């Protein structure tokens, strides 16, 4: 594969899935979850992955996050091939570069919200105090500062989901991966979370989100459709080109006249 991409504005992709396949099981029980995926996500780009259940969406995300290994092909995060790393280095790349929002949140029950969020930063070598400060800022950004000292068991699903998102966004992670990050949220809270992800990308991070809700996918720059383990289509949104955008521009011009 060529390493220059004419459609992208700049340089190395934050995430590069290069000829990925993933086969589960063997022989008669063989399941081809992914059948050859090539995808690059560049700095500033927000990609949504859609497709029917069983199309390979979640497998794609776990591979991108280094939680699973492709059968063939390579996953590169900020140019580093995850396949070539030992466990310690892999854990480090995942912690420093990748924020992962799990569908079932995966919060540590024995830690408070703030502790759950600050843990990766403490592992990065930050002082407990500085890590807590960052955690509180992340909780603030997601509109839930009051949850700082609560334990996951005392929170609703929607609250846990937002804590999980705060944990994924803390630090200067360049890649955010999210599996149905708004599943437990009502429509306005879900929207606020998407706006946070959008803002993170506008500030230069890259994000890939799996969702089955078109209304949520629409916050992305690029919507990729998966079917039977293949990318079958995509929709790219740029500022220009929409009827309504140009209609609004017309109205604007007439308003100025």
């Amino acid at each position, binding site marked *: 594969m060529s390493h220059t991409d004419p459609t992208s504005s700049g340089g190395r992709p934050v995430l590069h899935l290069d000829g990925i396949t993933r086969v589960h099981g063997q022989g008669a029980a063989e399941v081809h979850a992914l059948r050859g995926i090539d995808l690059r996500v560049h700095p500033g780009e927000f990609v949504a992955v*859609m497709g*029917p259940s069983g199309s390979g969406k979640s497998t794609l995300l776990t591979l991108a996050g280094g939680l699973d290994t492709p059968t063939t092909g390579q996953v590169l995060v900020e140019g580093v091939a995850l396949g070539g790393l030992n466990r310690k280095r892999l854990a480090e790349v995942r912690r420093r570069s990748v924020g992962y929002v799990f569908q079932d949140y995966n919060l540590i029950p024995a830690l408070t919200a703030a502790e759950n969020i600050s843990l990766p930063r403490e592992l990065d070598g930050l002082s407990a105090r500085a890590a807590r400060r960052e955690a509180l800022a992340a909780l603030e950004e997601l509109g839930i500062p009051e949850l700082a000292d609560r334990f996951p068991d005392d929170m609703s699903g929607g609250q846990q989901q937002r804590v999980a998102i705060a944990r994924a966004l803390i630090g200067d992670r360049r890649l955010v991966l999210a599996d149905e990050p708004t599943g437990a949220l009502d429509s306005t809270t879900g929207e606020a979370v998407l*706006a946070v992800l*959008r803002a993170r990308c506008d500030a230069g991070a890259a994000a890939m989100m799996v969702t089955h*809700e*078109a*209304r949520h*996918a*629409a*916050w*992305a*720059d690029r*919507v990729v*459709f998966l079917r039977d383990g293949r990318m*079958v*289509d*995509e*929709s*790219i*949104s740029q*500022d220009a*080109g*929409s*009827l*309504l*955008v140009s*209609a*609004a521009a*017309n*109205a*604007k011009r*007439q*308003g*100025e006249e």
Partner: protein
Amino acid sequence: MSIRHGLLALLGQGPRYGYQLRTEFEARTGATWPLNVGQVYTTLSRLERDGLVEPAGEDEEGHQFYEVTDAGRAELRAWFDTPVPRTNPPRDELAIKLAMAVTVPGVDVSAVVQGQRRHSIKALQDYTRLKGRALAGEPRLGAGTASASANNDLAWLLVLEQLIFQTEAEIRWLDHCETRLAQQAEIEQARAAEAAGQETARTFRPGRRRTRS
């Protein structure tokens, strides 16, 4: 009709002239349904014919003002008090297209579905972008004077969100069509397999008879 009542609603706030009505209508709906001045004047003359508005003089620049009559005010109240009828659903080109696609031979229905879904998602992305801007409170030219601006922005946000939900519904329906088509294909496959099985059984029977004899 919506333009008729839209203009009536604007005139309910005080006398206005044609061009002003058009600008104010579009400020609230973000020019989603652009009006030309001709439509505005045609609508005004029908409203006048029906006794719902009446001329209210001209200004020094020659703008003809209109104001709402008592009958017009009653009509407007009734419009707000009555649900928009759903008894005659508007013709939907996409529904008609798919209804034809599944019955006309030689049409790749799943390609029609996927092509439409890509297009609709793209529209949804564009609406969402506009909504993001509206939520961020970016000033929108043509939104009217500062005092009217906040209300117009809210109106525009609601109109945008209506487009978003409508497009989302369309995409969900397309997903559903796809599932339905796959299900139908499976049923037909099973039927074909069954028919082929009966066929095989029939062709084997003479052979069995032969061995018996």
